Every structure is written in C-alpha cells, then in structure tokens.
C-alpha cells in the first residue's frame, strides 16, 4: 500500500527525523522532527514513487500549554497516485520553522497566514507579513490566550470632537 510506502521510505531515508505515524479514520499522519522538515518535504515531493506534488493545506494549531506549544500540519496530495499524507511538526513558542515556499509556491500565503494567526515565524520566507490582519495589529488571534472579544473590545473608541481640536464650527 502506498500510504505505508511513504512512511517506510521516510523511515529508511530519515531514520532520526521520523518521530511516529498515526492512523485515524483512514488518514495517515507522520510526525517529523523540526530540523529535517525541508529535507523531508522535498523528498516527498520529488521522490519518483511518492510524488506528493500538491500542497493542499498548511494549518497551525495552538495547544495553549504543553510543550512544544504549537503544531503545524502540512497536508499533501499526490495527483499521480491519488493519495494524501499529513506531516506534523511540533514547534516551541518563539522558534522558527524553515519555509517551504520555494518548494511549493502555495506555501507562500499559507505560511503568512500561520504567522499572522499564531505568530510562528518561517525563516527565509520571502515576504513574511501579516496577511488577513492589519500591519499594526497587536497579538495573534488564533492563540488560545487571545481573548475571543479581542483586546480592545470594551475600551471606548477614540473620538476627537472638532471643538476639542480647537476648531471653530460654523453654526
């Protein structure tokens, strides 16, 4: 079976990087060590027998407590062999992941979103800016310690009346 093949090949090629494999509801998830992330993903994409050429999704998860705090999941699909594989990487707070945006262009925006929402940095990303929120936004909203209402929800909106500015208003 192909899904076992991906794990077996990874285990053979990167014996110290592969941390484990899970299967749940027919989905295979391989946990990989952070340091070898790029090598593993490049291998999965380029290996003739696997060809995971489509990066479907890249998702961050915050576990709030626990160490390492974050998880980043890469979902791959092979258009040739028609199967999916998920690669999971645990990231500690403040640590950076290597970018894969040069392997898949799709990762460019997906990594920016993970950075925006979780504050996980991707080193060597060509353009790591916030993507959905404004540049002056403080905090990363999908973190578990970010309040649902937002940080400034109950503060009054700054209003400056024309009189306070000292301007004359015509009647």
């Amino acid at each position: 079976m192909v899904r076992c093949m991906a794990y077996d090949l990874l285990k053979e090629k990167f014996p110290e990087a592969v941390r484990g494999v899970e299967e749940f509801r027919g989905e295979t998830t391989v946990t990989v060590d952070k340091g070898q992330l790029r090598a593993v993903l490049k291998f999965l994409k380029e290996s003739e027998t696997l060809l995971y050429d489509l990066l479907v999704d890249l998702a961050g998860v915050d576990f709030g407590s626990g160490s390492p705090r974050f998880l980043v999941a890469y979902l791959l699909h092979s258009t040739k062999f028609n199967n999916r594989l998920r690669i999971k990487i645990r990231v500690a707070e403040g640590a950076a992941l290597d970018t894969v945006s040069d392997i898949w262009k799709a990762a460019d925006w997906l990594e920016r979103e993970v950075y925006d929402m979780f504050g996980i940095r991707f080193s060597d990303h060509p353009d790591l800016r916030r993507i959905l929120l404004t540049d002056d936004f403080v905090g990363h909203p999908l973190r578990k310690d970010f309040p649902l209402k937002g940080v400034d929800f109950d503060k009054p909106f700054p209003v400056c009346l024309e009189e306070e500015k000292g301007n004359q208003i015509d009647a």
Partner: protein
Amino acid sequence: MPEKRLMTINMGPQHPATHGVLRLLLELDGEIIVKAVPHIGYLHRGIEKLAESMTYPQALTLTDRLDYTSGLSNNLAYCLTVEKLLDIKIPQRAQYLRVLLAELQRIAAHLLWVATHALDLGAMTVLFYAFRDRETILETMELVTGARLTPSFIRIGGLAADIPDTFLPRVKAFVEEFPQRVDEYETLLTENIIWKKRTQNISPMSGEECINYGVTGPVLRASGVYYDVRKAYPYSSYEDFDFEIPLGKNGDVYDRYLVRLKEMRQSNRIVKQAAERLPDGPVAASDAPLVVPPAKEEVGRDIAALIRHFKIMEEGFKPPRGEVYSSIESSKGELGFYLVSDGANKPFRLRIRPPSFVNLGALPKMIEGQMVADVVAAIGSIDIVLGEIDR
C-alpha cells in the same frame, strides 16, 4: 536613455470588478504590469476563532458565511468533517439529497460567476439570462431550506428536514430545461469574437504551475490537470453517479469559462440522476441519538425526546479525540476542513482550507507581464469570494 519610470496604482478595495473587497497594488510600466500585490483581510470576521467558542451544531451556521454563493456546499463540507470524526453513517436518501442540493448550488454559483464575469468584460446581456435561471434555483432551494443565502440545511448526521412534495417536480422541470439554457449562454459568448479576444491567451497557467501554486477547482482543470475531489476522494455517494470531469487545454481565461460551462451541464446530469433515483428512507442517521435531535412530533409526545433535544441544542455532543481532514469539491475548488478535537463539545481547532484563498495566491503570477486591462478578466476567471478568503 530616459530613466525608466514605474507607476503604482491602487485597485480596490471598492472596485466593482474585484468581487468584494480585494485590493490590488499594481506597479505599471506603461500598460504592462510589472508587479502585483494583493491585499486581503477586509472581510475578516475570525470565523476560525469563533468556531472554537461554539458547539459543533452551532458552528455550522458560520459555514454559510464563508463562500456566500454556495452555502449548502460549505454546510456539506463541514458536516462531512464532523461526521468523519464521529464515524456515523448517513442514510442513502440523505446522501442523495445532499448531492442533489450541492450540485444545484454549484450550478447557481457558476451562473452567478458567468453573469458577473461577462458583465466585468462588458457583455451585459448574459447577466439577465443567467440570473433568471439562478433565481429559479434559489426559489427551488428556498422551498426546501427556507433560505436563499444562508441555508444551514445540511446538518450533522443528515438533513434538517425531508423535502416537500413540490420539490422534486420542480427540480425535474428545471433539469429538463437547463441544457437549452446553457446553449443560450453559449450563443452569447462562446463564439463571440469580442469575448474571445478578451479571454483567449489571457493569464495562462500551465498544469505544473497550477499545482505548484496549490490551485484547485475549475482553474486547475482548465490547465488540463485531472483533479476533482468528487472523483479523487468520493464523498456522499458521488461514486454512484455518472458524470465527467471537463478539462481545458490552454489554461487561459477562455478555457476556464468553457470548463465552468461544461461543469454546469455535468452538474445538471448529476441532479437529474439523483432526482430520478432518490431512494426512500430517513434523512438523518438513526444510530446516532446523541448527535441527531429527535423529530418534532416526538418532542411533543415524549419527555425523554424533549430532554434529548434540549441537551443537543444546549450542550451539543462530544466527539472522540483526534484530528480529521475532509474536503469537497465546491464550485471554487477544494474546500476542506481540518478539525482537531480534544473530546470537548466545541472544536479545539477548526481550520478552513478555502479554495479561493489559495487560488488568489496565484493571481500575481497570472497577471505579471500582462496588460492592465486584463486584470479584471484574470480576477474574474479565478472566481473568488472574499467571504471565504478572509473568513
């Protein structure tokens, strides 16, 4: 040699051809685009964060507001994900009805697309024809779901209710009529010389480029790549239906148009088969009493059913720990939900994989080096919905 000067212009966020609130910063050398930088997020409502504070049945209503042109498809994708986590079986009648509704919704979404895209490029007439038929679909769906835009009709475990008797005759009448209607749009556009000049060889993408950019849906298939979630990972009994996946060759705006028109014909075929072969039976899972609320009559008769109903509505249910990903082929591409559960009655993390977001990421690649007048054609051809991109 005079110094080469670039001009930066701002397009949007309130530009009618950006289909919502997309803002583009374009750097121009004369009429050629040197660099394009999309700015998104104007419609960000924090749906992924909100979902973490809602029970599983409540979070369903958020999905209506993703791609607001195809609410039922979003409902379906979310429900399939939660059902995968719960591991419950959906009765066949519900599965067929889901397919029927999702395909009607796809036709409606594609009609909206062809109408607005043609309007963007100056062909106004198409709008009136396409909206006439979209109206028929929306009215038919209103008959079942009670809503035109935000149905929340496909529920975890099945459907909210069975269809009324008047529904199937209307669907069958529509299905008979619709292929001729598509012919009508084709007479307006397919061989139209102005349409061809504005769309052929505009913003082409090769199959490899599309895959590299993660592009899915009609845009990917217009480049000749055979990838459709309905065939690759069939869900909700799609394997029972006979339909083809239309492919394009050149991957330009024109091919994307052709693929979508052909897709409407195929969706029509699926709707027809589903309506003809619709089996009898319940429309909600009967083996999941903690997930599916009891029927209304039962609630009025039986105190235990009343309590169960109240518990499901108030507290929801607690799926097992674990993580699942499930996706459907929405009208825009692969719409996926990645759900992480910690065993509580609320999603621990609900990641939405929006097709429009990833597809829009390829826009700079599509338009850089092209003429500024073709930007509108390129944006239209991706078929973006900002509700889904910004979430």
